[in-house]
């Protein structure tokens, strides 16, 4: 009965080989008559043909009658796209039946298993959809979905087959199709939002196929695994389509390769928790998606080794630069050449080995911009003290941020000039991955910090900042695609966010740095040049860190003769911390109905032992009976608690500790005017004069 397997195979090839010109002809048809003509070429009595090892091996009629064994067919099928179709249903007289038959035959062939018709090709999925909509070739263009918007996913659930498509697609109007058509036993094409895969839709021994895009992948995993977890013998195949074109397949057994990106790390961790903890197995193979050839291949060790052998500069390439997409490979090589030419290529030291190809390429680029960051990273050791680590991380992050801004041609922002940005795709990716690098740095800082006992008592304060900084960077990293920038937030908003994260980070570093003040050695410093000059920036940073919209009006004796001619016993970072804490208090306890003003003045005391600096704000002030109490560790002023309940009462205590360590003192004073706010007097012990006393006196 199966009279012409060649025709069946030919038709099969038309449907599965993206390179086939005849397939293009098929999809390019605009005439329904043409489609009918094609389907008419397939004998109506053919039902299904099973292919194995590229040969037709058996066939089965739709009505259950016996068909000849065609296992010895001499008509090989040369699939070139890597997605060999395993079955062909050809029992149709009309195109719609043909298409529907394909789906049904697939389900039947695999029993309760997978449908191999599901490939990464959007067009094949469209074919199925059109089967439900009358297979109208004339409307083919309406179903054009780009690779970026297409989310191919499917759930084979018993007799039900579910496709998950782009939630924004109009195709979603048909998501109730299955519910409305209980007669669709074998076939149902139901688009469902990625995050709403209904729990329980799948049953035992079935397989879930799902493909998500970067950013939604975790959500997808959680949804799918929630459904999966109800069935102990379920197999989960979770494909993640990331920015770097990596597809990851999580399957049963052991984890082979999951750590290709922080997203993949998260994904693996969560999948492990959600799936493995319950099911006891998890396997992750890495799949590579080549955009040029539209091919999906497994990146096993052999392939990796092959790539390393054939890479032109393999000796200098980090191991996992050698495989991945063509674009990433080219990008990595271009960056490599850049780094080598400029003599500061540090990729091997800088890029964590588990990072993916494009990620490494980005890392290299960033290193080229801020290569000393690599040194800073290497200096971070578990045994390091917080202060030293903080300095390293601050330095590294600042350089990376500067490097990123330079990549975006945004360095002018550093001078306070804001202009619109129209970043290229490459720039966006660079910024995205640089942000993830910062997140890595933060994680290291947190680990090192936590190792110090002193950190523990302030963990609460720091823990509210660190997640926010990391969150900022992750938001940046996960949402810097052109669609979201263009449609929702705007490029500058993203840049502002990462800059704000940087501000928070620097503030955090400053806080962490106070842990080690007992160890500091006082040294002569010039308050005017080493501290006062930095106060406007510090005030601005504190304003941004607290998201205060009104400006902070800061007045101080910028060119004071007194400041200029006296050196005090101090330590720059420690003294900056004192001013930082006072400014932070001024901001937190400001009076909301008026702009915050801070006045800083300096004079020499009568005995000429100290330089006296007064710091006055116009906030809520400190009651006189608390002037000494506020310097006690963990003491909270009674009129301050309701304005900042999360405070720890340690800022002023730190100031007191630092000033004592420097041989000076700090005190609070009151003004008769209750609206005058708080005033602090800082007494810095004089170290020496820049000029002789006589000269100083004469000039006065």
């Amino acid at each position: 009965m199966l009279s012409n397997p060649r025709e069946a195979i030919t038709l099969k090839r038309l449907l599965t080989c993206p390179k086939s010109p005849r397939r293009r002809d098929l999809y390019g048809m605009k005439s329904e008559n043409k489609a009918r003509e094609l389907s008419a070429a397939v004998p109506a009595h053919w039902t299904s043909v099973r292919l194995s090892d590229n040969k037709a091996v058996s066939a089965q009629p739709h009505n259950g009658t016996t068909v000849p064994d065609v296992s010895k067919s001499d008509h090989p099928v040369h699939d070139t796209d890597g997605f060999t179709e395993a079955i062909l249903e050809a029992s149709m007289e009309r195109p719609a039946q043909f298409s529907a038959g394909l789906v049904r035959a697939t389900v039947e062939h695999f029993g309760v298993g997978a449908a191999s018709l599901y490939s990464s090709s959007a067009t094949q999925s469209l074919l199925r959809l059109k089967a439900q909509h009358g297979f109208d070739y004339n409307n083919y263009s309406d179903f054009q979905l780009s690779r970026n918007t297409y989310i191919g996913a499917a759930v084979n659930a018993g007799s039900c087959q579910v496709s998950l498509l782009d939630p924004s697609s109009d195709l979603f109007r048909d998501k109730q199709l299955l519910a409305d058509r209980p007669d669709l036993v074998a076939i149902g094409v139901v688009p469902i939002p990625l995050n709403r895969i209904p729990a329980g839709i799948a049953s035992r021994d079935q397989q879930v196929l799902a493909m998500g895009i970067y950013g939604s992948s975790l959500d997808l995993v959680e949804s799918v695994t929630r459904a999966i977890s109800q069935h102990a013998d379920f197999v989960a195949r979770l494909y993640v389509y990331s920015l770097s074109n990596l597809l990851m397949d999580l399957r049963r057994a052991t984890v082979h390769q999951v750590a290709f990106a922080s997203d993949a790390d998260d994904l693996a961790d969560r999948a492990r928790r959600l799936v493995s903890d319950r099911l006891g197995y998890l396997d992750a193979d890495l799949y590579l998606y080549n955009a040029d050839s539209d091919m999906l291949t497994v990146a096993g060790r052999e392939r990796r080794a092959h790539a390393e052998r054939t890479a032109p500069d393999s000796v200098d390439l980090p191991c996992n630069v050698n495989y991945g997409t063509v674009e990433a490979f080219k990008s990595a090589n271009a960056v490599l050449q850049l780094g080598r030419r400029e003599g500061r290529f540090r990729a091997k030291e800088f890029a964590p080995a588990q990072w993916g190809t494009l990620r490494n390429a980005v890392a290299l680029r960033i290193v080229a911009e801020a290569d000393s960051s690599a040194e800073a990273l290497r200096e971070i050791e578990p045994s390091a003290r917080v202060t030293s680590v903080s300095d390293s991380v601050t330095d590294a992050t600042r350089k990376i941020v500067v490097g990123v801004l330079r990549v975006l041609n945004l360095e002018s922002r550093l001078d306070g000039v804001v202009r619109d940005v129209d970043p290229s795709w490459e720039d966006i990716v660079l910024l995205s991955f640089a942000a993830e690098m910062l997140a890595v740095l933060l994680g290291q800082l947190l680990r090192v910090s936590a190792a110090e006992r002193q950190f523990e008592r302030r963990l609460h304060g720091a823990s509210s900042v660190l997640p926010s900084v990391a969150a900022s960077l992750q938001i940046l990293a996960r949402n810097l695609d052109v669609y979201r920038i263009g449609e929702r937030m705007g490029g500058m908003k993203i840049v502002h966010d990462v800059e704000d994260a940087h501000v928070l980070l620097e503030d955090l570093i400053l806080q962490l740095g106070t842990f080690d003040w007992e160890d500091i050695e006082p040294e002569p410093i010039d308050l005017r040049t080493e501290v006062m000059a930095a106060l406007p920036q510090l005030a601005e940073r504190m304003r941004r860190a607290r998201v205060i919209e009104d400006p902070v009006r800061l007045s101080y004796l910028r060119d004071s003769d007194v400041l200029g001619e006296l050196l005090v016993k101090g330590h720059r970072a420690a003294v900056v911390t004192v001013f930082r804490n006072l400014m932070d208090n001024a901001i937190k306890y400001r009076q909301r109905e008026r702009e915050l003003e801070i006045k800083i003045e300096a004079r020499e005391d009568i005995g000429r032992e100290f330089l006296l600096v007064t710091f006055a704000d116009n906030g809520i002030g400190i009651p006189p009976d608390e002037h000494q109490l506020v310097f006690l560790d963990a003491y909270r002023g009674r009129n301050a608690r309701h304005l900042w309940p999360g405070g720890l009462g340690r800022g002023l205590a730190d100031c007191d500790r630092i000033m004592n360590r420097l041989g000076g003192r700090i005190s609070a004073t009151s003004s008769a005017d209750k609206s005058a706010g708080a005033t602090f007097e800082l007494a810095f012990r004089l170290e020496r004069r820049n000029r002789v006393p006589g000269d100083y006196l004469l000039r006065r």
Partner: protein
Amino acid sequence: MTIYFVDEDKGPLVPYRSALELLGFEVEPIEFADDAYSLLSSCDPASITLVILDLMLAVRQPDDRFNERTTVNWDETGFCLFDELVASRPELFPRRIFLFSAIYKEGALIKAQRINQQYRVPFLRKRTYSNAADFGLAVKRRLEDIDDKQLDDK
């Protein structure tokens, strides 16, 4: 349709706010508990999509409702606001409340967990949500749950 974010420390909220905005929500920060109560107890209920509530909140001006005694020495201002909102608008709250806080004291934690169990109000700790994208998705899921519940009610 607005998500109100009640928290006095606006700096660390920036990424979480961005995460919600990326999901298409309009986010309105409120710094003080008394301001939040004034607004949320009287505004158009249709305008309140969700209230994300910190549990240690600032108060602009202590009064009969929010004072040292009712807020347990300012440690539980968020709980106080929660109770006030539930009492004033039971048709909206606590269903449209989402607790998001860095509280760490045992008593407050137990209280938050009790609310979570009694009212089925999500309680997320800031420390565990270093992933702002996940935070956004958690909020989104909460809203979907609320919508589903409304459909069930109808």
